[in-house]
């Protein structure tokens, strides 16, 4: 089981509260996690990654295990603790503004 925490705006859009739990086969990658989120919540298509290019939206970040994974390859395996569900993958709206 993969645990995912979505930002508040996307939880509201999906009408979903709390931590999201996904069942994914290995290898667990950002690409596969986001695809599973979009499949379960079609209204989130285009909000995490661009609907046309598939690229992460510039102000969205992927954090896990106290690391910023935003710039890693999206088909790279996520840390073992994420794949085992020991820690959540955090999808975050980046800090910006003054």
């Amino acid at each position, binding site marked *: 089981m993969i645990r995912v925490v979505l930002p508040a705006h996307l939880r509201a859009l999906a009408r979903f509260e709390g931590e999201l739990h996904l069942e994914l086969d290995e290898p667990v990658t950002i690409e596969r996690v986001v695809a599973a989120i979009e499949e379960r919540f079609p*209204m989130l*298509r285009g*909000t995490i990654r661009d609907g046309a290019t598939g690229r992460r939206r510039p102000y969205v970040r992927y954090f896990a295990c106290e690391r910023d994974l935003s710039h890693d390859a999206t088909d790279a395996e996520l840390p073992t603790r994420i794949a085992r569900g020991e820690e959540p993958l955090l999808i975050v709206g980046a800090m910006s503004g003054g």
Partner: protein
Amino acid sequence: MGSARRLHEGCDMSSVRVLVGTRKGAFILTSDGSRRDWRIDGPHFPGWEIYHVKGSPVNPERIYASQTSAWFGQVMQRSDDGGATWSTVGNGFAYDGVPGTHQWYDGTPHPWQFARVWHLEPSLDDAETVYAGVEDAALFLSTDGGATWSERSGLRTHSTGNTWQPGAGGMCLHTIILDPSNAQRMYVAISAAGAFRTDDGGATWTPINKGLRSEQIPDQDAEVGHCVHHVAMHPARPNTLFMQKHWDVMRSDDGGDSWREVSGNLPTDFGFPIDVHAHEPETIYVVPITSDSHHFPPDGRLRVYRSRSGGGEWEALGNGLPERNCYVNVLRDAMAVDRLDTCGIYFGTTGGSVYVSPNGGDAWHEIVRDLPAVLSVEVQTLP
């Protein structure tokens, strides 16, 4: 008498619903025909920028909303119960083919890139059909209630398209006007490309900017490149258009083929919105703003100006509006009129106030204050 006829004549209507888009959500303001007491409902979609909310003239319970965020992109919403509940619909705005480039601020080529939907224009005869004007400037159409969108690419691929340049707010298609007498004709306006007309349902487009002069561009009377802020039309006079340009208030009586200035005695002819009285096609409204570098009313005094002669001669309307220390702006889509017997005029400010005049501008009162900055105001006149 059928309901459509009643809607057109505006004789039996008893209530209004004002749809307000703001920087941090949407609000729905309702009142009976007296327009004295108001119910404020919202925020809908709190925290998101709501560029535009507009109802179908065919089915007023069908409302479309553009919800957007710098973080999470474009979301489209649809209501089938007058805004009580909402459902997300399609947000796939893909340009037709390889979109190429337009001019960037520094004059270099810049790839066309979708940013957001600025304006929604529901069809005059089908509630499932709606147009969307987007940034970077293009026109999209949905015929399935917003589920899917396709570009009417004849506009963006106009031979001048690669010369278009963004205004300060982005290169946005912000105005869409459907001609009620001719389903093949519509008008759009783009900052800072200018105004365009189609006479074949959107397949091909003609720039309609003859008579415009803009000191901010190298060729002041160029075919394109003018920063048109807004255009308005009375449905009974589809060949007459009124325009608030970056500077200058303009008028055309030949469907945009030519324009003449009607700024007349306005204290300043810079501004954003322009609208036409529901029952008097020669009565028009603007909100003069000090200048392009001072986006607030002259002398800190908020006043709407009305012309009963289709421009040229203007009168100040300030009864009930702030007399001093008012430094807000009124954005291009933030003015609307209802169709009650005594036409109501509405506008919202970047300071978060929404005002109404239930008597054509003679006196105003504040419906609500301290909302987030108002981006758009539309009004539905209901039976």
